[in-house]
Protein backbone atom coordinates (compact mmCIF):
# COMPACT_ATOMS: atom_id res chain seq x y z
CA UNK A 1 0.00 0.00 0.00
CA UNK A 2 1.48 3.19 -0.96
CA UNK A 3 0.43 6.61 -0.17
CA UNK A 4 2.23 9.32 -1.87
CA UNK A 5 1.44 12.85 -1.17
CA UNK A 6 2.84 15.42 -3.40
CA UNK A 7 2.07 18.65 -5.10
CA UNK A 8 -0.29 16.92 -7.48
CA UNK A 9 -1.94 15.57 -4.36
CA UNK A 10 -5.28 14.71 -5.87
CA UNK A 11 -3.86 12.79 -8.80
CA UNK A 12 -1.26 11.06 -6.74
CA UNK A 13 -3.77 10.20 -4.06
CA UNK A 14 -6.03 8.86 -6.78
CA UNK A 15 -3.20 6.79 -8.16
CA UNK A 16 -2.38 5.76 -4.65
CA UNK A 17 -6.01 4.80 -4.10
CA UNK A 18 -6.08 2.77 -7.35
CA UNK A 19 -3.08 0.69 -6.34
CA UNK A 20 -4.63 0.16 -2.89
CA UNK A 21 -7.77 -1.26 -4.53
CA UNK A 22 -5.73 -3.56 -6.81
CA UNK A 23 -3.90 -4.94 -3.85
CA UNK A 24 -7.13 -5.43 -2.01
CA UNK A 25 -8.52 -7.20 -5.07
CA UNK A 26 -5.49 -9.46 -5.18
CA UNK A 27 -5.88 -10.15 -1.50
CA UNK A 28 -9.51 -10.99 -1.97
CA UNK A 29 -8.79 -13.31 -4.87
CA UNK A 30 -6.08 -14.95 -2.85
CA UNK A 31 -8.42 -15.43 0.08
CA UNK A 32 -11.12 -16.84 -2.20
CA UNK A 33 -8.68 -19.31 -3.73
CA UNK A 34 -7.58 -20.45 -0.28
CA UNK A 35 -11.20 -20.94 0.75
CA UNK A 36 -11.96 -22.90 -2.42
CA UNK A 37 -8.89 -25.05 -1.87
CA UNK A 38 -9.94 -25.81 1.69
CA UNK A 39 -13.44 -26.65 0.54
CA UNK A 40 -12.10 -29.01 -2.14
CA UNK A 41 -9.82 -30.66 0.38
CA UNK A 42 -12.80 -31.02 2.64
CA UNK A 43 -14.89 -32.55 -0.11
CA UNK A 44 -12.10 -34.98 -1.03
CA UNK A 45 -11.58 -35.88 2.59
CA UNK A 46 -15.31 -36.37 3.00
CA UNK A 47 -15.53 -38.72 0.03
CA UNK A 48 -12.41 -40.60 1.14
CA UNK A 49 -14.15 -40.93 4.46
CA UNK A 50 -17.28 -42.28 2.85
CA UNK A 51 -15.32 -44.78 0.71
CA UNK A 52 -13.83 -46.28 3.84
CA UNK A 53 -17.31 -46.20 5.38
CA UNK A 54 -18.61 -48.22 2.46
CA UNK A 55 -15.91 -50.82 3.03
CA UNK A 56 -16.75 -50.94 6.74
CA UNK A 57 -20.47 -51.20 6.00
CA UNK A 58 -20.12 -54.14 3.65
CA UNK A 59 -17.78 -55.94 6.03
CA UNK A 60 -20.25 -55.45 8.89
CA UNK A 61 -23.00 -56.78 6.62
CA UNK A 62 -20.94 -59.87 5.82
CA UNK A 63 -20.13 -60.45 9.49
CA UNK A 64 -23.83 -60.41 10.28
CA UNK A 65 -24.41 -62.90 7.49
CA UNK A 66 -21.85 -65.36 8.72
CA UNK A 67 -23.44 -65.24 12.15
CA UNK A 68 -26.76 -66.07 10.47
CA UNK A 69 -25.13 -68.83 8.42
CA UNK A 70 -23.64 -70.28 11.58
CA UNK A 71 -27.09 -70.24 13.21
CA UNK A 72 -28.59 -71.95 10.18
CA UNK A 73 -25.86 -74.62 10.22
CA UNK A 74 -26.39 -75.30 13.93
CA UNK A 75 -30.11 -75.79 13.33
CA UNK A 76 -29.43 -78.11 10.43
CA UNK A 77 -26.85 -80.09 12.40
CA UNK A 78 -29.37 -80.38 15.24
CA UNK A 79 -27.23 -78.48 17.76
CA UNK A 80 -30.13 -76.10 18.34
CA UNK A 81 -33.82 -76.88 17.83
CA UNK A 82 -35.37 -75.91 14.51
CA UNK A 83 -37.23 -72.60 14.83
CA UNK A 84 -39.27 -71.38 11.86
CA UNK A 85 -39.29 -67.80 13.15
CA UNK A 86 -35.49 -67.81 13.34
CA UNK A 87 -35.26 -69.06 9.75
CA UNK A 88 -37.27 -66.02 8.67
CA UNK A 89 -34.77 -63.82 10.48
CA UNK A 90 -31.89 -65.63 8.77
CA UNK A 91 -33.39 -65.23 5.29
CA UNK A 92 -34.23 -61.59 6.00
CA UNK A 93 -30.57 -60.91 6.83
CA UNK A 94 -29.43 -62.53 3.57
CA UNK A 95 -32.08 -60.65 1.63
CA UNK A 96 -30.82 -57.42 3.17
CA UNK A 97 -27.31 -58.30 1.88
CA UNK A 98 -28.58 -58.95 -1.59
CA UNK A 99 -30.43 -55.63 -1.70
CA UNK A 100 -27.52 -53.57 -0.38
CA UNK A 101 -24.58 -55.25 -2.12
CA UNK A 102 -25.02 -53.58 -5.51
CA UNK A 103 -24.38 -50.13 -3.96
CA UNK A 104 -21.50 -51.16 -1.72
CA UNK A 105 -18.76 -51.48 -4.36
CA UNK A 106 -18.11 -48.00 -5.74
CA UNK A 107 -14.93 -47.45 -7.78
CA UNK A 108 -13.21 -45.67 -4.91
CA UNK A 109 -13.60 -48.65 -2.60
CA UNK A 110 -11.23 -50.90 -4.57
CA UNK A 111 -8.55 -50.27 -1.99
CA UNK A 112 -8.86 -49.43 1.65
CA UNK A 113 -8.21 -50.88 5.05
CA UNK A 114 -8.58 -54.64 5.12
CA UNK A 115 -10.77 -54.92 2.07
CA UNK A 116 -10.65 -58.35 0.44
CA UNK A 117 -12.78 -57.31 -2.50
CA UNK A 118 -11.04 -58.57 -5.61
CA UNK A 119 -10.35 -56.26 -8.57
CA UNK A 120 -12.38 -58.81 -10.54
CA UNK A 121 -15.54 -57.10 -9.24
CA UNK A 122 -14.76 -54.00 -11.27
CA UNK A 123 -13.46 -56.02 -14.22
CA UNK A 124 -16.66 -58.05 -14.53
CA UNK A 125 -19.44 -55.77 -13.29
CA UNK A 126 -22.19 -57.50 -15.27
CA UNK A 127 -21.35 -60.94 -13.90
CA UNK A 128 -21.06 -59.55 -10.37
CA UNK A 129 -24.50 -57.97 -10.65
CA UNK A 130 -25.95 -61.16 -12.11
CA UNK A 131 -24.61 -63.20 -9.22
CA UNK A 132 -26.16 -60.83 -6.67
CA UNK A 133 -29.45 -61.18 -8.53
CA UNK A 134 -29.20 -64.96 -8.41
CA UNK A 135 -28.40 -64.76 -4.70
CA UNK A 136 -31.57 -62.69 -4.18
CA UNK A 137 -33.63 -65.13 -6.23
CA UNK A 138 -32.35 -68.16 -4.32
CA UNK A 139 -33.12 -66.42 -1.03
CA UNK A 140 -36.66 -65.68 -2.15
CA UNK A 141 -37.13 -69.28 -3.27
CA UNK A 142 -35.84 -70.54 0.07
CA UNK A 143 -38.08 -68.13 1.98
CA UNK A 144 -41.11 -69.36 0.05
CA UNK A 145 -40.34 -73.03 0.37
CA UNK A 146 -39.13 -73.31 3.98
CA UNK A 147 -41.66 -74.87 6.30
CA UNK A 148 -39.66 -77.53 8.17
CA UNK A 149 -36.10 -78.64 8.82
CA UNK A 150 -35.72 -80.57 5.57
CA UNK A 151 -36.95 -77.76 3.34
CA UNK A 152 -34.83 -75.33 5.36
CA UNK A 153 -31.76 -77.46 4.80
CA UNK A 154 -32.36 -77.57 1.04
CA UNK A 155 -33.00 -73.83 0.91
CA UNK A 156 -29.94 -72.94 2.95
CA UNK A 157 -27.72 -75.18 0.84
CA UNK A 158 -28.82 -73.43 -2.33
CA UNK A 159 -28.11 -70.05 -0.74
CA UNK A 160 -24.71 -71.24 0.50
CA UNK A 161 -23.68 -72.12 -3.04
CA UNK A 162 -23.99 -68.43 -3.89
CA UNK A 163 -21.81 -67.40 -0.95
CA UNK A 164 -19.21 -69.91 -2.02
CA UNK A 165 -19.29 -69.06 -5.69
CA UNK A 166 -18.89 -65.31 -5.10
CA UNK A 167 -16.10 -65.88 -2.62
CA UNK A 168 -14.34 -68.05 -5.17
CA UNK A 169 -14.11 -65.36 -7.84
CA UNK A 170 -14.68 -62.04 -6.14
CA UNK A 171 -13.02 -62.30 -2.76
CA UNK A 172 -9.25 -62.44 -2.42
CA UNK A 173 -7.55 -65.35 -0.72
CA UNK A 174 -6.40 -64.65 2.84
CA UNK A 175 -2.95 -63.10 2.88
Amino acid at each position, binding site marked *: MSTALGTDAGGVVFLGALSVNQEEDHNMIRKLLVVIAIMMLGVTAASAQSCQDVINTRQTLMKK*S*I*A*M*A*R*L*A*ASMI*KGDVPFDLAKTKEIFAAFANDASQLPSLFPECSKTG*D*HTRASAAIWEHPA*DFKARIAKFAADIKAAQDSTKDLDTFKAGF*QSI*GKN*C*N*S*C*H*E*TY*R*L*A*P*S
Partner: protein
Amino acid sequence: MRRLAIAAAAAIAACAVALWILTIPAVVPASALPHYVPGVENGRTMFNAGGCASCHAVPNEDPDKVDRTRLGGGLALKTPFGTFDVPNISPDPQDGIGRWSEANFVTALWKGTAPDGTNLYPEFPYTSFQYMRLDDVRDLFAYLKTLPPVPGKVRGHDLKFPFDIRRLVGLWKLLFLHGGPFVPDPSKSAQWNRGAYLVNGPAHCAECHSPRNALGAIIESERFAGGPSPDGNGWVPNITPAGLSHSPFGDFQWSEQDMTSFLGDDMTPSGDFAGAAMAEVIRNTSLLSHDDRAAMANYILSLPPRQGPAPPKKAE
Protein backbone atom coordinates in the same frame (compact mmCIF):
# COMPACT_ATOMS: atom_id res chain seq x y z
CA MET B 1 49.90 -76.40 -16.24
CA ARG B 2 48.85 -78.54 -19.17
CA ARG B 3 48.52 -81.56 -16.89
CA LEU B 4 46.31 -79.52 -14.59
CA ALA B 5 44.09 -78.52 -17.47
CA ILE B 6 43.75 -82.13 -18.64
CA ALA B 7 43.01 -83.28 -15.09
CA ALA B 8 40.37 -80.59 -14.67
CA ALA B 9 38.75 -81.47 -17.98
CA ALA B 10 38.71 -85.15 -17.03
CA ALA B 11 37.16 -84.36 -13.66
CA ILE B 12 34.44 -82.28 -15.27
CA ALA B 13 33.75 -85.01 -17.82
CA ALA B 14 33.55 -87.61 -15.06
CA CYS B 15 31.10 -85.45 -13.12
CA ALA B 16 28.96 -84.99 -16.20
CA VAL B 17 28.86 -88.73 -16.83
CA ALA B 18 28.04 -89.42 -13.18
CA LEU B 19 25.29 -86.82 -13.29
CA TRP B 20 23.95 -88.32 -16.47
CA ILE B 21 23.82 -91.77 -14.93
CA LEU B 22 22.35 -90.56 -11.64
CA THR B 23 19.59 -88.71 -13.41
CA ILE B 24 18.42 -91.52 -15.68
CA PRO B 25 14.64 -91.23 -15.35
CA ALA B 26 13.24 -94.19 -13.44
CA VAL B 27 10.63 -96.31 -15.14
CA VAL B 28 8.15 -98.95 -13.99
CA PRO B 29 8.28 -101.73 -16.58
CA ALA B 30 5.14 -103.56 -17.69
CA SER B 31 6.63 -106.77 -16.34
CA ALA B 32 6.34 -105.29 -12.84
CA LEU B 33 2.55 -105.16 -13.12
CA PRO B 34 0.73 -108.37 -12.20
CA HIS B 35 -2.50 -109.34 -13.97
CA TYR B 36 -5.33 -107.13 -12.69
CA VAL B 37 -8.90 -106.28 -13.66
CA PRO B 38 -9.30 -102.56 -12.89
CA GLY B 39 -12.31 -101.08 -11.10
CA VAL B 40 -13.64 -98.01 -12.91
CA GLU B 41 -15.80 -96.89 -9.97
CA ASN B 42 -12.79 -96.77 -7.68
CA GLY B 43 -11.01 -95.01 -10.51
CA ARG B 44 -13.67 -92.30 -10.38
CA THR B 45 -13.13 -91.97 -6.62
CA MET B 46 -9.40 -91.55 -7.21
CA PHE B 47 -10.16 -89.00 -9.93
CA ASN B 48 -12.27 -86.97 -7.49
CA ALA B 49 -9.82 -87.37 -4.63
CA GLY B 50 -6.98 -86.39 -6.93
CA GLY B 51 -8.73 -83.35 -8.30
CA CYS B 52 -7.32 -84.16 -11.75
CA ALA B 53 -10.00 -82.11 -13.50
CA SER B 54 -9.00 -78.95 -11.64
CA CYS B 55 -5.74 -78.76 -13.56
CA HIS B 56 -6.35 -80.93 -16.63
CA ALA B 57 -9.85 -79.97 -17.76
CA VAL B 58 -10.15 -77.41 -20.54
CA PRO B 59 -10.36 -74.10 -18.65
CA ASN B 60 -13.30 -71.71 -18.59
CA GLU B 61 -13.42 -68.21 -17.11
CA ASP B 62 -16.47 -69.33 -15.11
CA PRO B 63 -15.31 -72.28 -13.01
CA ASP B 64 -18.90 -73.59 -12.81
CA LYS B 65 -18.91 -73.98 -16.58
CA VAL B 66 -15.84 -76.25 -16.76
CA ASP B 67 -16.66 -79.67 -18.21
CA ARG B 68 -14.75 -81.87 -15.82
CA THR B 69 -14.76 -84.84 -18.20
CA ARG B 70 -12.91 -83.05 -20.99
CA LEU B 71 -9.28 -83.26 -19.99
CA GLY B 72 -7.78 -81.41 -22.94
CA GLY B 73 -5.42 -79.39 -20.75
CA GLY B 74 -4.39 -75.82 -21.48
CA LEU B 75 -4.54 -74.24 -18.05
CA ALA B 76 -1.52 -71.97 -17.49
CA LEU B 77 0.11 -72.29 -14.08
CA LYS B 78 2.40 -69.39 -13.21
CA THR B 79 5.22 -70.22 -10.81
CA PRO B 80 8.56 -68.69 -9.83
CA PHE B 81 10.14 -71.03 -12.43
CA GLY B 82 8.02 -69.88 -15.32
CA THR B 83 4.62 -70.79 -16.69
CA PHE B 84 3.53 -74.41 -17.01
CA ASP B 85 1.04 -75.40 -19.65
CA VAL B 86 -1.03 -78.27 -18.28
CA PRO B 87 -1.06 -81.17 -20.78
CA ASN B 88 -3.89 -83.05 -22.44
CA ILE B 89 -4.57 -86.29 -20.56
CA SER B 90 -7.76 -87.20 -22.39
CA PRO B 91 -7.67 -90.59 -24.12
CA ASP B 92 -7.03 -88.90 -27.47
CA PRO B 93 -4.51 -91.12 -29.29
CA GLN B 94 -2.63 -88.22 -30.93
CA ASP B 95 -2.78 -85.39 -28.43
CA GLY B 96 -3.60 -87.11 -25.15
CA ILE B 97 -2.72 -90.35 -23.39
CA GLY B 98 -4.77 -92.61 -25.67
CA ARG B 99 -1.67 -94.63 -26.64
CA TRP B 100 -0.23 -94.90 -23.15
CA SER B 101 0.11 -98.31 -21.55
CA GLU B 102 -0.79 -98.97 -17.94
CA ALA B 103 2.92 -99.11 -17.14
CA ASN B 104 3.37 -95.67 -18.76
CA PHE B 105 0.68 -94.26 -16.46
CA VAL B 106 2.07 -95.87 -13.31
CA THR B 107 5.53 -94.59 -14.27
CA ALA B 108 4.18 -91.06 -14.65
CA LEU B 109 2.46 -90.99 -11.27
CA TRP B 110 5.11 -92.88 -9.29
CA LYS B 111 8.33 -91.82 -10.97
CA GLY B 112 7.47 -88.58 -12.74
CA THR B 113 8.71 -89.98 -16.03
CA ALA B 114 6.95 -89.64 -19.40
CA PRO B 115 6.55 -92.56 -21.87
CA ASP B 116 9.38 -91.13 -24.01
CA GLY B 117 11.70 -91.49 -21.03
CA THR B 118 11.98 -87.79 -20.21
CA ASN B 119 11.28 -86.25 -16.84
CA LEU B 120 7.93 -84.73 -16.01
CA TYR B 121 8.12 -81.49 -14.05
CA PRO B 122 7.05 -81.78 -10.40
CA GLU B 123 4.43 -79.15 -11.09
CA PHE B 124 2.60 -82.39 -11.71
CA PRO B 125 2.59 -83.48 -8.06
CA TYR B 126 4.02 -86.97 -8.41
CA THR B 127 5.69 -86.22 -5.07
CA SER B 128 2.23 -87.00 -3.66
CA PHE B 129 0.98 -89.49 -6.24
CA GLN B 130 4.01 -91.69 -5.51
CA TYR B 131 2.12 -92.74 -2.37
CA MET B 132 -0.80 -94.16 -4.31
CA ARG B 133 -1.37 -97.92 -4.28
CA LEU B 134 -0.78 -99.71 -7.56
CA ASP B 135 -4.39 -100.88 -7.83
CA ASP B 136 -5.70 -97.36 -7.28
CA VAL B 137 -3.43 -96.00 -10.02
CA ARG B 138 -4.57 -98.72 -12.42
CA ASP B 139 -8.22 -98.06 -11.55
CA LEU B 140 -7.68 -94.35 -12.19
CA PHE B 141 -6.15 -95.11 -15.59
CA ALA B 142 -9.14 -97.26 -16.47
CA TYR B 143 -11.51 -94.45 -15.46
CA LEU B 144 -9.62 -91.86 -17.51
CA LYS B 145 -9.98 -94.07 -20.56
CA THR B 146 -13.79 -93.87 -20.25
CA LEU B 147 -13.71 -90.08 -20.68
CA PRO B 148 -14.11 -88.43 -24.08
CA PRO B 149 -10.99 -87.95 -26.24
CA VAL B 150 -10.23 -84.26 -26.69
CA PRO B 151 -8.10 -83.32 -29.69
CA GLY B 152 -5.53 -80.54 -29.46
CA LYS B 153 -1.99 -80.34 -28.13
CA VAL B 154 -1.21 -77.59 -25.69
CA ARG B 155 1.46 -74.94 -26.28
CA GLY B 156 4.14 -76.29 -23.98
CA HIS B 157 5.82 -74.85 -20.93
CA ASP B 158 7.50 -71.45 -20.91
CA LEU B 159 10.21 -71.80 -18.30
CA LYS B 160 13.19 -69.74 -17.26
CA PHE B 161 16.73 -71.05 -17.76
CA PRO B 162 17.95 -73.48 -16.38
CA PHE B 163 14.56 -74.88 -15.38
CA ASP B 164 13.78 -75.50 -19.02
CA ILE B 165 16.39 -78.29 -19.05
CA ARG B 166 14.31 -81.37 -18.32
CA ARG B 167 17.28 -83.55 -17.54
CA LEU B 168 18.03 -81.39 -14.49
CA VAL B 169 14.69 -82.45 -12.99
CA GLY B 170 16.49 -85.77 -12.51
CA LEU B 171 18.70 -84.02 -9.94
CA TRP B 172 15.64 -82.60 -8.27
CA LYS B 173 14.10 -86.07 -8.09
CA LEU B 174 17.30 -87.46 -6.56
CA LEU B 175 17.03 -84.88 -3.84
CA PHE B 176 13.31 -84.77 -3.25
CA LEU B 177 11.50 -87.82 -4.67
CA HIS B 178 12.06 -90.77 -2.41
CA GLY B 179 8.73 -91.79 -0.93
CA GLY B 180 7.26 -94.88 -2.48
CA PRO B 181 3.79 -96.29 -1.88
CA PHE B 182 1.95 -95.43 1.30
CA VAL B 183 2.72 -97.62 4.30
CA PRO B 184 -0.17 -97.86 6.76
CA ASP B 185 0.48 -97.29 10.44
CA PRO B 186 -0.72 -100.42 12.25
CA SER B 187 -1.04 -98.54 15.54
CA LYS B 188 -3.71 -96.27 14.04
CA SER B 189 -7.31 -96.98 13.06
CA ALA B 190 -8.40 -97.99 9.58
CA GLN B 191 -10.16 -94.63 9.28
CA TRP B 192 -6.99 -92.71 10.15
CA ASN B 193 -4.98 -94.73 7.65
CA ARG B 194 -7.56 -94.15 4.92
CA GLY B 195 -7.41 -90.41 5.69
CA ALA B 196 -3.61 -90.37 5.77
CA TYR B 197 -3.55 -92.19 2.43
CA LEU B 198 -6.05 -89.87 0.74
CA VAL B 199 -4.55 -86.65 2.12
CA ASN B 200 -0.91 -87.48 1.36
CA GLY B 201 -1.60 -89.42 -1.84
CA PRO B 202 -4.27 -88.55 -4.37
CA ALA B 203 -5.64 -85.43 -2.65
CA HIS B 204 -2.10 -84.02 -2.41
CA CYS B 205 -3.14 -81.42 0.17
CA ALA B 206 0.43 -80.75 1.29
CA GLU B 207 1.36 -79.52 -2.19
CA CYS B 208 -0.51 -76.27 -1.51
CA HIS B 209 -0.61 -76.24 2.27
CA SER B 210 3.17 -76.42 2.83
CA PRO B 211 6.02 -73.93 2.39
CA ARG B 212 8.65 -74.68 -0.26
CA ASN B 213 12.40 -74.14 -0.48
CA ALA B 214 14.27 -72.23 -3.19
CA LEU B 215 14.21 -75.29 -5.46
CA GLY B 216 10.47 -75.56 -5.11
CA ALA B 217 10.39 -78.65 -2.92
CA ILE B 218 8.21 -78.95 0.17
CA ILE B 219 10.00 -78.18 3.44
CA GLU B 220 9.15 -81.49 5.08
CA SER B 221 9.50 -80.25 8.67
CA GLU B 222 6.74 -77.72 7.93
CA ARG B 223 4.46 -79.99 5.94
CA PHE B 224 0.85 -78.74 6.14
CA ALA B 225 1.96 -75.60 7.99
CA GLY B 226 0.88 -73.25 5.24
CA GLY B 227 2.77 -70.96 2.91
CA PRO B 228 2.47 -68.67 -0.12
CA SER B 229 -0.07 -69.91 -2.62
CA PRO B 230 1.57 -71.72 -5.56
CA ASP B 231 -0.67 -69.76 -7.92
CA GLY B 232 0.76 -66.52 -6.56
CA ASN B 233 -2.50 -65.35 -5.01
CA GLY B 234 -2.36 -64.87 -1.29
CA TRP B 235 -1.54 -67.29 1.47
CA VAL B 236 -2.55 -70.90 1.98
CA PRO B 237 -3.39 -71.54 5.66
CA ASN B 238 -1.64 -73.79 8.14
CA ILE B 239 -3.94 -76.81 8.56
CA THR B 240 -2.11 -78.40 11.47
CA PRO B 241 -3.91 -77.83 14.79
CA ALA B 242 -1.61 -74.84 15.43
CA GLY B 243 -3.00 -73.18 12.32
CA LEU B 244 -6.63 -74.30 12.45
CA SER B 245 -7.19 -72.76 15.87
CA HIS B 246 -6.03 -69.36 14.52
CA SER B 247 -7.23 -69.69 10.96
CA PRO B 248 -8.08 -66.78 8.64
CA PHE B 249 -11.69 -67.45 9.61
CA GLY B 250 -11.17 -66.77 13.28
CA ASP B 251 -9.91 -68.30 16.48
CA PHE B 252 -12.00 -71.37 17.13
CA GLN B 253 -11.65 -75.13 17.19
CA TRP B 254 -12.57 -77.39 14.29
CA SER B 255 -14.27 -80.66 15.15
CA GLU B 256 -14.04 -83.69 12.87
CA GLN B 257 -17.66 -83.10 11.92
CA ASP B 258 -16.80 -79.49 11.04
CA MET B 259 -13.91 -80.58 8.80
CA THR B 260 -15.93 -83.40 7.21
CA SER B 261 -18.74 -81.06 6.27
CA PHE B 262 -16.26 -78.36 5.17
CA LEU B 263 -14.82 -80.81 2.66
CA GLY B 264 -18.37 -81.23 1.41
CA ASP B 265 -19.52 -77.62 1.00
CA ASP B 266 -16.63 -75.23 1.80
CA MET B 267 -18.46 -73.82 4.81
CA THR B 268 -16.30 -73.12 7.85
CA PRO B 269 -17.52 -73.56 11.44
CA SER B 270 -17.72 -69.76 11.65
CA GLY B 271 -20.40 -69.67 8.94
CA ASP B 272 -18.09 -68.32 6.25
CA PHE B 273 -17.41 -69.99 2.90
CA ALA B 274 -13.68 -70.29 2.23
CA GLY B 275 -13.90 -69.56 -1.48
CA ALA B 276 -10.75 -68.53 -3.41
CA ALA B 277 -8.61 -71.53 -4.40
CA MET B 278 -10.24 -73.81 -1.83
CA ALA B 279 -13.58 -73.65 -3.61
CA GLU B 280 -12.03 -75.56 -6.52
CA VAL B 281 -10.65 -78.19 -4.15
CA ILE B 282 -14.10 -78.65 -2.63
CA ARG B 283 -15.55 -79.17 -6.12
CA ASN B 284 -13.62 -82.44 -6.02
CA THR B 285 -13.81 -83.45 -2.36
CA SER B 286 -17.56 -82.82 -2.30
CA LEU B 287 -17.83 -85.77 -4.68
CA LEU B 288 -16.19 -88.12 -2.19
CA SER B 289 -18.22 -90.26 0.19
CA HIS B 290 -18.97 -89.03 3.68
CA ASP B 291 -16.71 -91.80 5.02
CA ASP B 292 -13.76 -90.69 2.90
CA ARG B 293 -14.19 -87.05 3.89
CA ALA B 294 -14.51 -88.08 7.54
CA ALA B 295 -11.30 -90.11 7.21
CA MET B 296 -9.49 -87.10 5.77
CA ALA B 297 -10.86 -84.95 8.60
CA ASN B 298 -9.75 -87.48 11.17
CA TYR B 299 -6.23 -87.49 9.76
CA ILE B 300 -5.93 -83.71 9.34
CA LEU B 301 -7.02 -83.05 12.90
CA SER B 302 -4.48 -85.59 14.15
CA LEU B 303 -1.52 -83.79 12.56
CA PRO B 304 1.17 -82.68 14.99
CA PRO B 305 0.87 -78.93 15.56
CA ARG B 306 3.52 -77.16 13.49
CA GLN B 307 4.44 -73.53 13.03
CA GLY B 308 4.95 -72.58 9.45
CA PRO B 309 6.28 -69.36 7.95
CA ALA B 310 4.42 -66.22 8.96
CA PRO B 311 2.37 -64.56 6.22
CA PRO B 312 3.76 -61.17 5.17
CA LYS B 313 2.57 -58.32 7.40
CA LYS B 314 -0.28 -56.36 5.88
CA ALA B 315 0.22 -52.61 5.53
CA GLU B 316 -2.16 -51.05 8.05
